[in-house]
């Protein structure tokens, strides 16, 4: 029995095995809302308004909910093996431009998570410094690149633990 034969047959078995496309949601299930039937009638208009706002809010939240995209550096993805995490943001931008990726959104994380002062901004130009975290290609072709400038940031991948560029 050759290894290639075994590999082919095992791969075929695994491919025939039932899978699951969707991982679990990363959210808690929503608590069921129970109407309080004894609410005074005077509150009814406010209640109706609140329900309308909540419904609209839920629809917006659903519309804008998190979607998964393959990581740009994942195996078989366009930037596999690029090691962008080892570059400074300007170097990464230069690399991307050289390879034809010009529609890039730079998402910059700043502040401190532990002190609840972290914030996120998106911009069209790369910041001067920070750890580059390769992001993902969105459905419209834009590439999201994350730059972590937060207190205590460590970098990722091959350059995990290096000084912040």
């Amino acid at each position, binding site marked *: 029995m050759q290894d290639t034969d075994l590999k082919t047959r*095992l791969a075929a078995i695994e491919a025939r095995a039932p*899978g699951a496309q969707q*991982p679990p949601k990363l959210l808690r299930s929503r608590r069921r809302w129970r109407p309080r039937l004894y609410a005074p009638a005077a509150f009814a208009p406010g209640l109706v308004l609140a329900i309308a706002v909540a419904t609209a809010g839920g629809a917006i939240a659903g519309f*804008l909910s998190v979607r*998964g995209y393959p990581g740009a550096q994942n195996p078989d993805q366009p930037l596999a093996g690029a090691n962008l995490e080892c570059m400074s943001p300007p170097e990464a931008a230069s690399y991307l431009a050289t390879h034809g990726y010009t529609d890039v959104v730079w998402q910059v994380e700043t502040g401190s998570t532990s002190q609840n002062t972290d914030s996120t901004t998106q911009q069209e130009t790369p910041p001067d410094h920070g750890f580059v975290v390769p992001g993902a290609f969105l459905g419209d072709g834009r590439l999201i690149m994350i730059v972590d400038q937060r207190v205590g940031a460590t970098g990722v991948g091959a350059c995990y633990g290096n000084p912040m560029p």
Partner: protein
Amino acid sequence: MTTLKQTLIRRRLRSVSAPSGIAGSPSDAATFEAAVTPLYDSIVRRLVVVLGDLQEAEDIAQDAYLRAFQSWERFDGRDVRAWLYTIALRLAFNHLRRRRRWLAALRRIAPAPWSDRSDPDLWTAIHRLDVRTRAALLLNVLDGYTQREIATMLAVPEGTISSRLSRARSVLRAALEDGSSQN
């Protein structure tokens, strides 16, 4: 400029029952989902082959996915597939240990397994192997991980992996040669 989407994601993520270690920023969740979600299907398939039971495989894959999210900030960024397989397979082994205990206590029959009918000889042969040997074999043959890497993933000495792989190959060889001579 913080977008509405980011604000919503941030609020929702902070409501996750995650340990205090999670940064909870939008980029963490987005990066996690971008890196891990495409692998989810293959994790379930691998667990089905290792465990032989779809329901158990799905339960463990879900648990592994959530645990991976909870420990995302500790991931070194090197090989997300290996990291996810490590979490999932260790959970599977723990699950089997618990299940054996319960089944022994209840004297129940193990759940009906999923089986592959297209290649019954190989399916039967790999299910003659114990579950850890089967997992090691798949990591080696299908994913190409070295014995040292598998030893790290499954938290056992490298020599143990070496002997398991050797035994697996001899069992498969004998079983498949028997099968082909009978056909």
